[in-house]
């Protein structure tokens, strides 16, 4: 079996699973500063799938690609800690405000720069938008087949991958020729832990921008070990069309945002006493809601 070239698409997201009461400002907008950021959970599953293929097919090379603000360099480091070979970060203020269409355009420009590849892997969806759109949109722009919701790779051969998809009402096993794009479902195996030696090796990995505020120790390390410098691509580096990125390239716009304030019903407030609960049950039976 020939070695494969795999690109993993990963995103740093606000941790919307743990939205505290102070996550929203009084005016109903999101208080981003109060939300911690995490490696998008489905993307971690995609990373595991890539590393699993690397284990199975010797010589396979895994590159992790992310787009985001400087802080998103954490995603690249996390990828290194768990076993990727290369990491690339697409970062430029002008990419900001992108919806899924503009995001897929930008990622594809980065992927094209990394070409050739056999397989593109990404999580099914990101927890900040839950759209599940960027994967299929990238596949379309790359003119390659897509296989969505994959939970298991059954077989890999020279020209094709056989994978099992998790659908709402069952499963489906398909074969797809290389190159193709796969989105990975959360029912696939969880990602392996960080590897202690890799953490030691890569903990000082930094982007050029991060290096500007780094101390002398880190700077000299980067001089000795060029692999520590994470490639950072701007609009010009990927030759992106300004009309197709950021807000300008995004057809969907937020017209308004509402922090839904539920208006109070005339609820009956009870406690857990026997009397209260028996009263409620009797009322429900009387009104034929139950029984």
């Amino acid at each position, binding site marked *: 079996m020939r070695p494969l070239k795999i690109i993993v698409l990963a995103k740093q997201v606000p941790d919307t*699973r743990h939205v505290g009461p102070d996550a929203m400002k009084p005016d109903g907008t999101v208080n981003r500063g109060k939300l911690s950021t995490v490696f998008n959970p489905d993307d971690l599953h995609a990373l595991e799938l890539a590393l699993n293929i690397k284990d199975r097919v010797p010589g396979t090379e895994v590159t992790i690609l992310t787009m985001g603000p400087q802080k998103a360099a954490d995603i690249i480091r996390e990828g290194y800690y768990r076993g990727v070979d290369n990491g690339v970060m697409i970062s430029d203020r002008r990419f900001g405000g992108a919806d899924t269409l503009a995001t897929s355009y930008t990622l594809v420009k980065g992927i094209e720069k990394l070409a050739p590849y056999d397989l593109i892997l990404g999580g099914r969806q990101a927890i900040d938008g*839950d759209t599940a759109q960027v994967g299929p949109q990238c596949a379309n722009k790359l003119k390659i087949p897509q296989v969505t919701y994959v939970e298991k790779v059954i077989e890999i051969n020279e020209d094709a991958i056989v994978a099992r998809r998790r659908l709402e009402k069952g499963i489906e096993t398909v074969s797809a020729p290389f190159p193709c794009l796969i989105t990975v479902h959360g029912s696939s195996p969880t990602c392996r832990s960080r590897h202690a030696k890799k953490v030691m090796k890569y903990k000082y990995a930094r982007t050029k921008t991060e290096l500007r505020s780094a101390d002398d120790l880190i700077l000299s390390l980067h001089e000795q070990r060029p692999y520590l410098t994470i490639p950072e691509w701007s609009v010009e580096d990927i030759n992106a069309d300004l009309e197709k990125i950021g807000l300008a390239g995004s057809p969907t716009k*937020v017209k308004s*945002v509402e922090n839904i304030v539920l208006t109070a019903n005339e609820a009956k407030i*009870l406690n*857990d006493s026997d009397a209260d609960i*028996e009263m409620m049950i009797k009322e429900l039976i009387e009104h034929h*809601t139950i029984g």
Partner: protein
Amino acid sequence: MMKSVMVYCEVENQKVADISQELLSAGKRLAQKLGCPLNAMIFGANLKDIKNQIAPFGVDKLIVGDDARLEPYRTLPHAALATEILKSEDPQIVLFGATSVGRDLAPRLASQLNCGLTADCTILDIGDHFVKKEKKEYKDLLYAIRPAFGGSIMANIINWDMHPQMATVREGVMKKEIFDTNYTMEVENINVNEIVKEEDFVVKIIERHIKESGVNLKDAPIIVAGGYGVGSKQNFEYLQELAQLLGGEVGGSRAAVDAGFIDHDRQIGQTGTTVRPKLYIAAGISGAIQHTAGMQDASMIISINNDPDAPINKLADYVINGDLGVVVPKMIKYYKANAK
């Protein structure tokens, strides 16, 4: 003539999917507001009688791609056909189910057509928007409204310049209603072989096991749902027992599903199932919009929560301040004692 509203219909074994019927009704309501035709497209095998299932929703024109290779759904052939139709028909709005089919197909099309797509809408409406930069009022846009940011806010998403305006909607969100059982619909059969190429079939289906899920939350009259506050899989057994006793089903919030307390197919909310039971018992559920979007139309709501300020309490008819480990066994006890 005004540009149409178009619905992509899913079909398997000559049966139009429930979600597609719901979308046809939602599409009809939009088309009536806009005063434009409602059209639909459907691709599958042996579809010569399928029109009878679609016309009653008030569809003006149905475009059919009938070919054995189009079923079960595969991305590339369906994308090729839909692209061709959307280019020639040029609708203003296109609706898809937020199903494993629609969520696979719609983004591929949005990229191909370079247009906007909003996922998992819970409300679709028509309205205007003034674009300050252009000093221009855009009339009759699609308001694609959805919970966002993990369900903490509702966002109204619009797209005024890169059409068509596309949206996906989850099953159960839109109400299905027959418009006219004798509605006259035009049927157009497209020549599949002229559009779909051999290379569109490179992805091969090797094996497929689809079963109707044993879980039917949508039609359950009573739902006992638990959230992250339930705390463990074991505690969910209390809810299971209560649900069984009352003749209902157990459901869970997304947080409960993510925590592994309950199976994914029992998730209630924007990214799960939308339900309208006559009784909804919410235990240990705080009430993020993500969740309430999927249950707020229940006839009666009981909230059991340790936190008297849980947002869901504002929707509830009964609020029980207490621990579900205490409350639920008492509910079971007094139901047994009082039910006839």
